[in-house]
Each structure stands twice: as C-alpha cells, then as structure tokens.
C-alpha cells in the first residue's frame, strides 16, 4: 500500500471516531499552543528590550561612581562622589570615543506660571542629544557658550511641556523656575516614549551641566558620564581604556577597588536576552512535558483502539494485509492524530497570540521555524508513542484475532 492510501486509511479510521480523536489530540493541541504563545511572548519581549536599549543611545557606555563605605555601611554604586567633568574631558580625548557628556540629575519641582510639576532635571553637555540619538522638536539645544557661562537655559521634554503648558502655548522663550532660579526655555525635545524599564523618558528638563552643579547640587562631581563609542566594535576597547584612564586619574592601584563603574548597554542587553533565553527554555520545558503527556494520551488511545479493533486487524490480515502494512496503518493513525493536533495547536496558539497582543499591546512575533518545529515535533511524538501500539497490532496472530470477542 502506498503512502497516500495509508494516510487516507488512517484519516478515515480517525474520522470514524471523531469525538475520541479530538479528545486524544487535545493534549498535543494544548502543548503546541502553549509553545507558540510563550515563544511569541518571549520573542516579542526580547525585541522590545532590544528596541528600548537601542533607543537609549547608540554604542553607549555609562560611567558611574562606585560604592563608598561610611561607618561600615556600603552605599552601593553611585554612592561615591568621585566623577568630575574633567574626567569626562579626559575620556573625550581617548581613541574610539565619539562624544562624552556629564550627567547631573536632580529630582525637583519645576514651576511655570500657575503650573508646577516634579520632574528630573538633567545637567548635560551639548553632545547629549548626539549620544542619546534624541532629536529636538523645536528651538535649539544647549551649546558650549551655555556650558561655559553656566547659563540659565532649559530644553523641555514633551511630558513636562504637557504638564506646564497645558493650553498648548509654545514654551519657547518662556521662563520656568527651578529651585528659585528662572531658566529660559530654548528648545523642546521630540517624544521618546517609555524606556525599556517603563520609565517615561520624556519626563525631563535638560540644562547645562555647569548650571546644574552650580545652582542645584552645589557639588563639583557628576552623577554619571555618558560616553558614546564611535562604532559598535569600539565599545569593548573603549570600556577598557576608560577604566584604565580613570584608575590612573583616581590613583587606584590594584587590589584597591575602583571607585567607579563602567557599563555598556550591550552587556545589559545581553543579560536581558539571556534572561529571556532562560525563560524560553523553561517554557519550552513545560511545553515539552505537556507534549509528552499528550503523547502518552495518544499511546493509551491507540492501545485501546488496537484491542477494540482486534477482529478488524484479523480480517485485514486475512484479506491480504501484511504485518508491516498493519504496523504502518496504526503508526500512520498515531502520526496523523499527533500532526493534526499540532496543526490545530499552531492555529490555537496563533489566535491566542493575536488575542494577547490585542489585549496587552505587547509586541509579539511567531518565528516561522517554531511553527515548523512544533508540527515536526508533534509528528515525532506520534511516531514515538504510536510505535508500541502499532507493533502490538502487527504482532497479532490472524486466527486468534479473528476469534477475539
């Protein structure tokens, strides 16, 4: 008997027992649907993490102050006040560095006319928009003169504009009061949306870092130095040369701990995607277990079916079916059962993905290779769990099978 006839025979045997066939498939359907949905969520999550990390800036390296120990309590990274704008100027001269901006951030109240709003005031250098790849919406950005003169100028994020100028007036040329000091609005930033961590990146006011140090913190140190490497391949070497330079400038000799920390977003992205991979493996494990349970269900039903159809098998043998033909017939039934279950699972998983995507607005994607892999794996489950019952059927003695009550 050829393949087409065998499959047709298997299909007609399954159709004869529609309800049972469908219930038997259910395990596989749920397993495959679970695989598809979890993979879709996992891939979507990874894509969105990557996107939000990219949105933070290209080839970005962040230098933060290290931890300090005061009366036995260790402050954690950023606790030390060790980084200065001069460190930033020195880093800017290193090969492979495209731009550097100090970052002085303070969370405080901003007032414009009758409206006020608490937001993050960030003191930055003119290079900041380049480092963050963050275009302006209107006006101009902070320039070198503003930094040199610690000018009272500000560039507003879209969320701050919405809060302080709710009636839609252009904020350009207006005055906002930060800690009692009037700042003139010289520009507005384009909307950037949420960061990968769920932070509203548009909820910020940018001012020259010199102004922030003089008027807001009163310190000579900065919260961070943001460094942009000229190319992605330069990230690692720049990270190393920045570390060496700062160790020299801060006179740190190993085994003394660095009083700063250099991180790049690529490593954060890798960590995030590793977390994603672990999650996916875990979910794949759960899905595999449910597929195996589904496979055992198929084996169970196939064994029942072989017993039930003992006389039919005897008859088929007496009218010319070879043992191998009987084996193929029952194996084909198990494979068709599992594969159809897999296909229904893919469809169910696709619908589930669509529904979750519509409900949560998570970005989701089903890679086509996963669809193929799920269906192929289902078929394999069918072969694996169908073989034993099929062999039982093929091993029947036709005389005894015909007499079976």
């Amino acid at each position: 008997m050829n393949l087409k006839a065998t499959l047709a025979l298997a299909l007609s045997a399954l159709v004869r027992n529609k309800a049972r066939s469908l219930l038997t498939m259910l395990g596989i359907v749920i397993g495959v649907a679970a695989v598809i949905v979890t993979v879709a969520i996992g891939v979507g999550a990874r894509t969105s993490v990557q996107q939000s990390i990219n949105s933070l800036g290209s080839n970005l390296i962040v230098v933060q102050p290290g931890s300090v120990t005061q009366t036995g309590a260790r402050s954690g990274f950023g606790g030390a006040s060790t980084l200065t704008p001069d460190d930033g100027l020195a880093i800017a001269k290193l090969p492979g560095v495209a731009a550097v901006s100090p970052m002085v951030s303070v969370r405080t109240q901003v007032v414009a006319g009758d409206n006020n709003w608490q937001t993050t005031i960030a003191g930055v250098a003119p290079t900041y928009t380049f480092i963050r790849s963050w275009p302006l919406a209107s006006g101009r950005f902070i320039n070198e003169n503003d930094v040199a003169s610690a000018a009272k100028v500000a560039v507003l994020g879209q969320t701050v504009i919405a809060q302080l100028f709710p009636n839609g007036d252009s904020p350009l040329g207006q005055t906002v009061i930060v800690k009692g000091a009037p700042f003139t609005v010289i520009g507005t930033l384009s909307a950037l949306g949420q960061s990968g961590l769920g932070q509203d990146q548009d909820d910020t006011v940018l001012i020259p870092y010199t102004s922030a140090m003089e008027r807001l913190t009163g310190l000579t140190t900065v919260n961070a130095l943001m460094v942009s490497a000229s190319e992605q391949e330069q990230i690692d070497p720049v990270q190393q040369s920045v570390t060496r330079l700062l160790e020299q400038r801060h006179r740190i000799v190993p085994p003394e701990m660095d009083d700063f920390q250099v991180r790049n977003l690529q490593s954060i992205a890798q960590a995030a995607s590793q977390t994603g991979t672990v999650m996916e493996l875990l979910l794949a494990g759960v899905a595999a277990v449910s597929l195996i349970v589904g496979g055992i269900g198929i084996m169970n039903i196939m064994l029942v079916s072989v017993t039930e159809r003992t006389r039919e098998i005897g008859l088929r043998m007496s009218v010319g079916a070879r043992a191998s033909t009987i084996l193929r017939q029952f194996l084909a039934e198990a494979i068709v059962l599992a594969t159809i279950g897999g296909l229904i699972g893919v469809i169910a998983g696709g619908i589930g993905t669509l529904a979750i995507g519509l409900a949560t607005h998570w970005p989701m994607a089903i890679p086509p290779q996963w669809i193929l892999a799920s269906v192929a794996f289902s078929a394999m489950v069918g072969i694996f769990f169908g073989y034993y019952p099929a062999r039982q059927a093929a091993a029947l003695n036709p005389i005894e099978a015909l007499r079976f009550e």
Partner: protein
Amino acid sequence: MARVVEVSGLGKTYALGEERVQALRGVDLALDAGEFVAVMGPSGSGKSTFMHVVGLLDTPTAGTYRFEGADVSTLRADDRADIRGRRLGFVFQAYNLLPRTSAVENVELPMVYAGVSEAERRTIALAKLDLIGISHLANHHPNQMSGGQQQRVAIARALVNDPGLILADEPTGALDTQTSKDIMSLFARLNEEQGITIMLVTHEPDVAAYARRIVTFRDGLITSDTRNERRAA
C-alpha cells in the same frame, strides 16, 4: 481440471500449555478447480485447523501443501499474506465487516491491499455486489443491514479478487434457517454458474448438503470423502 489444493501427509502439532496437541495427523486431500466441498466433523476434529492451513493463516508442522501448483508449506508470513489477499477469499461466521464503513468500501478492502487503483476498485466492487444481488445496498453501513445481507456483502468481498478458492467457515452459523438456505443457495449458484471453487467448513449436515463433495474429519484425520449425490437446491 486444474488442481487448486493438494495436501499430503499434512500434520499440525501445537503446544497447549504442557500438552502437545496433534490437531492434524497426516491429511491427504486434493481439490480441483470448480469443486464445492464441505468439510465436516465434530469440534476438535481438526477441520478448523485444516481450514486455517489451507487458508494460509497457519503453517503445517508436517507434510506438504501445494496451492495452485506451488509449494506453500513453508512460505514466509508476508508471502502468505499476499496469496491470501490475491488468491483466496474468506467468509466468516461473524461476517467481519468493518463497522461504520459502507458495503461497497467493505467489498473493496482486499483490493486495497492487492494494490488495485481506486477507480478500478469501485467498479469491481459494484460489479460483485450486483452479482450477489445486493447492489442496492452499496452505500449501507453494516448496522443498517440484516445478517443475511451482511453475509452477502462478505461473500462479495471474498469474490472481489477473483480468487482460486473461497473458504467459508460456518458461514450460516449466525443466521436463521431461511436465510441460511438463501446463503447456501447463493454459494451453490456461484459454484455452478461462475465455476468458483468453494471449501465450506460446517458441522451442520443441512448446510453440507449443498456441497458436491463431503469430507469428514475425526481426530485429525479424514474418515470419509464422498460425492454428494443428493444435493440440496
């Protein structure tokens, strides 16, 4: 007349627990094309074992069996299956039709294994149903048919590959008297008009009366082999 079955010194011994049962103890029989023989005997006489060996469902442990001229005593299982499908037809007491499958599809079954094309199968199956006089039942399922009708479908199925021999094992065992007569008349007609060779296993003299020749088994041996002069009609 072509020789269909020729057995000599046929023996069959099998182990039943500790005991060794000699079901056949050296049977000699020849069957020519066009014959209609009834195999009779009480249960345990070896007639069923004999039918299984002749039907290539079982292998002998002694002696030789030539079917249509070829020695088939020691054939492999697959080759026996091929001959069963292509050269033998079986009719059972319990009909053994596939449930939830139409009559015509049941009749097609041996051709499926013999590798006949789909279109050809349908034509031949319908022709055989017509020959048996039940073409109007082609699309009925077994549960929509009476016992006699089901047995007719089974006979059509046995005829479908134009076999050299039909083996009927108690074909009327599950039928009432009138239906039994109808089925036996059908066998007699097929034998007479179509020249189909039939070997019938039964323990009922009324049924055996339709055959031209009656062979009686006892304790694994043939005890009588007679022409049936007074055939039932």
